[in-house]
């Protein structure tokens, strides 16, 4: 032979390695104490604090009283989407950039897509577990009446899946923002915290001034929280929303736009390493 032949790699390995990455990611996720607390358990801790602190207050009308736990549950589910996806992944990936993990991958035949599948799979796995825990604690410990209509759960399913995907992709896209792995927490957590405060997670959205509601409406968290309220709050709460309805088409459109923005930003900016030139 006179020409150098490069053996081709087996087809389908991107998916196979992606699944292997998901197992690896989930395993290592639960071995880091700080991530488990600040991303995974945080909404549950907040739900518990609000439910206990405001246990004497009613958040509904006199005719249909609503407990603090029931009032805060949708917001905490939305916060869980943001924390498990955007906050967790952006800090995680920035850290892996900083500590040389990505540089090591860059020198192996691991496809970038398999790496992303692993990260997104980890967000799905931890996000589902987190939502299940929130619903369980709300339903069993705080006696929140969960919806019985299948249509409500169908809404929950698509809001959750779209929300968790968007949040995960935005997390990957934002991972390039911190300049070092060490500064990642300091850069990302304030962004996530501000979003949570203006998007109706900790403060009732209807209490915010209109201009701040308009600012929040640009970002996806407000819409995820609204989608969750549509599932878990009584119908008459819809009148408190901007426009007086749950606006599920709006939830779909704005969140989907952010998903596309995140995908485009990831496609354009993500590199294993910054090559100098």
């Amino acid at each position, binding site marked *: *032979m*006179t*020409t*150098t*032949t*490069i*053996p*081709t*790699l*087996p087809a389908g390995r991107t998916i*196979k*390695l992606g699944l*292997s990455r998901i197992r*690896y990611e989930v*395993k*290592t996720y639960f*071995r*880091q104490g700080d991530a488990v607390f600040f991303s995974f358990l945080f909404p549950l801790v907040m739900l518990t604090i609000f439910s206990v602190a405001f246990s004497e207050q009613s958040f509904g009308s006199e005719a249909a009283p609503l407990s603090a736990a029931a009032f805060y549950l949708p917001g905490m589910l939305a916060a869980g989407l943001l924390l498990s996806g955007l906050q967790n992944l952006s800090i995680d990936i920035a*850290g*892996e950039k900083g*500590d*040389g*993990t990505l*540089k*090591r991958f*860059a*020198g*192996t*035949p*691991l*496809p970038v897509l398999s790496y992303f599948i692993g990260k997104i799979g980890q967000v799905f796995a931890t996000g589902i577990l987190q939502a299940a825990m929130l619903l369980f604690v709300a339903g069993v410990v705080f006696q929140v009446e969960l919806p019985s209509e299948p249509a409500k759960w169908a809404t929950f399913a698509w809001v959750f899946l779209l929300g968790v995907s968007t949040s995960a992709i935005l997390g990957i896209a934002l991972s390039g923002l911190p300049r070092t792995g060490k500064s990642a927490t300091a850069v990302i957590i304030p962004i996530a915290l501000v979003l949570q405060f203006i998007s109706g997670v900790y403060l009732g959205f209807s209490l915010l001034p209109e201009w701040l509601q308009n600012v929040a409406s640009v970002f996806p968290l407000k819409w995820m929280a609204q989608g969750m309220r549509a599932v878990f709050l009584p119908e008459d709460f819809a009148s408190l929303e901007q426009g007086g309805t749950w606006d599920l088409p709006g939830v779909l459109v704005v969140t989907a736009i952010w998903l596309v923005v995140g995908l485009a930003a990831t496609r354009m900016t993500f590199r294993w*390493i910054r*090559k*100098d*030139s």
Partner: protein
Amino acid sequence: MTTTEPVVSVRNLHKRYGSFTALDGVSFDIHRGETFALLGPNGAGKSTTIEILEGYRDRTSGEASVLGVDPGTGGLAWKARLGIVLQSTGESGNVTVREQLTHFAGFYPNPRDVDEVIAAVGLQDKQKTLIRKLSGGQRRRVDVALGIIGRPELLFLDEPTTGFDPEARRQFWQLIDSLKQDGTTILLTTHYLDEAAQLGDRAGVIAGGRLIDIGAIDEIGGAEARVPIVRWKQDGERKSVRTSEPGLVVAKIVAQLGEPEALEIIRPSLEDIYLQLVADHAAAEAADLMENAS
């Protein structure tokens, strides 16, 4: 595949960062099955060269071919044939040695056996320990294990034994010997000249971004640099003679003085030769500068 085609071929490689020239026309070949040691002071351009060949950096100009592929555009199938041990790593290491190796083995089409690799780097007792709980030298052995798990045709070792104790270094040398016997081609950078002498078939010395010498380990620096030195003490004074016939010189001294005090015959080690090469280069650069300035 022709056997004569070099595994690594570099021609007139240049790398500039802004106005700083890191590499200024480096050329060399590495042949199949060979261990090539790239030596040089810190900042001389060793890591820049190796990172260009690994595909981590772009070159400014010149040609480079690694396993027949331009490293600037090498894809996954190309990377599957390489093993890379980077100079420094600091991953969080929330997995055990065995988990990490098993996971990485899955990236490659024809990986080595995980148990064999763990044994080869001497981490059998630590295989179920989280990597972050290992000592620096043990983590370095994990790096080496990850570099060879994919059964690479070409292995890059960038200062692989930093932080090893002498025993671990001997074990590492044995491991590299066995890889060489398997036909692995190796590009090694190291600050330990005894290591380069032990492992290398050929060496290149790089200083100021230029390759100042290249040759077989036992020929580099030229015959002149290898002339042995005879040293002894005479009337309390140190004497030394450079000679290619040290036996005859010693015989003469003995005939004259009887048993001489503190007699030594020293053959310059690779380290001595290397230090001389780098010092000569620095002196020549300084002389150039003076000439240009005047």
